[in-house]
């Protein structure tokens, strides 16, 4: 046997073990291959683009109601003043228009409700037009529904990042702790097995699984929803690879010392859940306060999803997503080295 084969053979065998444990577990195939596209399909349906709904308003007099009906995005009901008040209070309408004693119009609405403010503007315009106001400048609208700006376009890169992270962190953590619990880890280090090779086998395995996992979601997104892949394919692959390596290293770190599957489950949830929420998988991370943004940007899942979105939706190449890739690389190196150092082998 040559020197190279002596080094590679354990890595090959250990990686094969990872694969065999995966495909001999039928449930895992469901979670990895079927679940993410199902999730994307469900969310894609829920958030599909629908025309804006008409806003419900009430008018106190028939003349006022007719005036308001001139605006097609208002759904107008004629209600006596007392009923209109009740409808406004329980949210059945967002605005009530009444005739003032002096001949003017009174709008009653809640100014903190965006719908109500919009209804106020539309209602007033309808009232003014009915009163004879003429627009000085003619305008027209052209509605745009373009791939790349829909919710599903926002969602798919997020799902890719989330799936890569979840399967890496869970798969690695659970497998290692289970091996430790069974004394298999102790038996392996009693053999002349290079320890870093053992940890490396997880990185190799996860990289291979990444092709399947990310591929399944991307293929589904592109075929079913026409999600665009505007950036270079190489940069997309690089983003996925760095995500996988960072999250696998994170998984190794999480599993470095835990003795029970309960402990590793708790720890994984503790680390993964905040990232699901903060890293912008389902909604933009911009919703979090400004002072939190720098910290959020440093999370591995944020870096991953930012890079994927920039690549897929804005056509960014490797150069433009360099900061995100650098953050991921820092996670890979730090987690792997710390894990190797503090790893409990028995």
């Amino acid at each position: 046997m040559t020197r190279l084969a002596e080094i590679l053979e354990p890595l090959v065998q250990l990686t094969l073990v990872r694969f065999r444990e995966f495909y001999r577990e039928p449930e895992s195939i469901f979670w990895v291959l079927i679940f993410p596209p199902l999730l994307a399909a469900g969310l894609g349906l829920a958030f599909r683009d629908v025309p804006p709904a008409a806003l419900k308003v009430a008018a106190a007099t028939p003349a006022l109601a007719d005036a308001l009906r001139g605006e097609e995005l208002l759904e107008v009901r004629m209600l006596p003043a007392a009923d209109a008040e009740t409808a406004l209070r329980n949210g059945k309408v967002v605005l009530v228009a009444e005739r003032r004693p002096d001949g003017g119009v009174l709008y009653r609405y809640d100014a903190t409700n965006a719908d109500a403010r919009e209804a106020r503007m539309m209602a007033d315009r309808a009232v003014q037009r009915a009163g004879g106001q003429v627009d000085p400048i003619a305008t027209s609208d052209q509605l745009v529904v373009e791939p790349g700006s829909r919710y599903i376009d926002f969602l798919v890169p997020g799902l890719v990042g989330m799936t890569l992270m979840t399967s890496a962190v869970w798969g690695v953590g659970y497998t290692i702790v289970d091996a430790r619990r069974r004394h298999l880890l102790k038996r392996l280090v009693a053999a002349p097995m290079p320890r870093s090779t053992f940890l490396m086998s997880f990185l190799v395995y996860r990289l291979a699984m990444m092709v399947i996992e990310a591929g399944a979601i991307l293929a589904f997104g592109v075929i079913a929803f026409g999600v665009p892949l505007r950036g270079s394919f190489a940069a997309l692959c690089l983003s996925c690879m760095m995500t996988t390596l960072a999250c696998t290293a994170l998984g190794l770190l999480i599993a470095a010392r835990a003795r029970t599957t309960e402990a590793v489950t708790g720890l994984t949830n503790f680390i993964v859940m905040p990232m699901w929420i903060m890293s912008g998988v389902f909604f933009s991370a911009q919703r979090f306060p400004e002072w939190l943004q720098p910290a959020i940007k440093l999370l591995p899942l944020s870096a991953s999803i930012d890079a994927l979105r920039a690549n897929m939706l804005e056509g960014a190449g490797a150069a433009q997503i360099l900061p995100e890739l650098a953050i991921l690389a820092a996670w890979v190196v730090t987690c792997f080295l710390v894990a190797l150092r503090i790893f409990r082998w028995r």
Partner: protein
Amino acid sequence: MTSRIAHVEAASQSRRVCPHAPDRAAEFDWRGIGPQELRVGEDIPNIALSVKSLRKTYNEVVAVKALDVDVRKGECFGLLGPNGAGKTTTVEICEGLTEPDSGEVVVLGMTWASDAGELRHRLGVQIQETQFADKLSVIETVRLFRSFCRKGPQPDELIALVQLEQKRNAWVRTLSGGQRQRLALACALAGDPDLLFLDEPTTGLDPQSRRHLWEVVMQFKRAGRTIVLTTHYMSEAEELCDRVAIMDGGAIIASGAPRDLTASLRAGHILELTAARDSVSVDCTRLEGIAGVSSVREDDGKIRLQVQELHASLPLVLDELTRQRVALSNLETHSPTLEDFYVALTGRHLRDD
């Protein structure tokens, strides 16, 4: 690399006449291999393992205290003792899996502090209660462990060695306890080790499986290799071990060849009497006075006498029992065993089996 592997043809030449082990066990033959040549750093050529003043505590519980052991090259050395005696801790320190608090461990002339990498290649290790991955097959598991080693039998030869050919492609999950232990043994032998550690290799196995395993261990020993095993089966130690050390409470309380230990009882035979349920109880002090009886011990309703010569003492003992009007329900006799030695030493049985 010169092959250390004698080929399968050897099997046809060496048909064994062994009632217990099927002759398939002979397929991998270590006889052509011989004891290991000496290597640099082996200043005590005949000692495979040397342990001095070893001490280990876990949270203030002393697991091993002031333990000294020397294991000679080419012998099978047994650590005997009840659960919690410190056997596993001792062995795992020798295997480099546990750090001792203090003391010195020299394995094959090397220490874990400076030669861990080399030592891993020269030791075969089977640890207690290893559960291999359930969904790997036997051959896949053996191939994995073989891949770590720079020399040794091929995976299929290892499987033949422990007679698991029938289960070659079966998942580990489907193996019986005995088959799992044999798989563990195959993995321990993957690197063709100079020194083999077996921690309770036959615990929980039926007698047939136990014999299978013994046969493989004996074959390995006949090739001049060294074995350290722990067990709480006295019969296993008698069958396999050249020397044993009996551990209790973290220390060795006796050591030597099984034959020497049993001989030290100065008893030609052990006589065990059981009084009938409705009989009067036996007055043991009067039995002690009988010529040729060196000790009398009562435990668990059994009276156990060590006697020099059975034919001389037995009639006298029976006469005495008749005089005491004792009715017997059972009378057994056997040559002294390690179990008898252990009972004489500690007043306890090691294990009911």
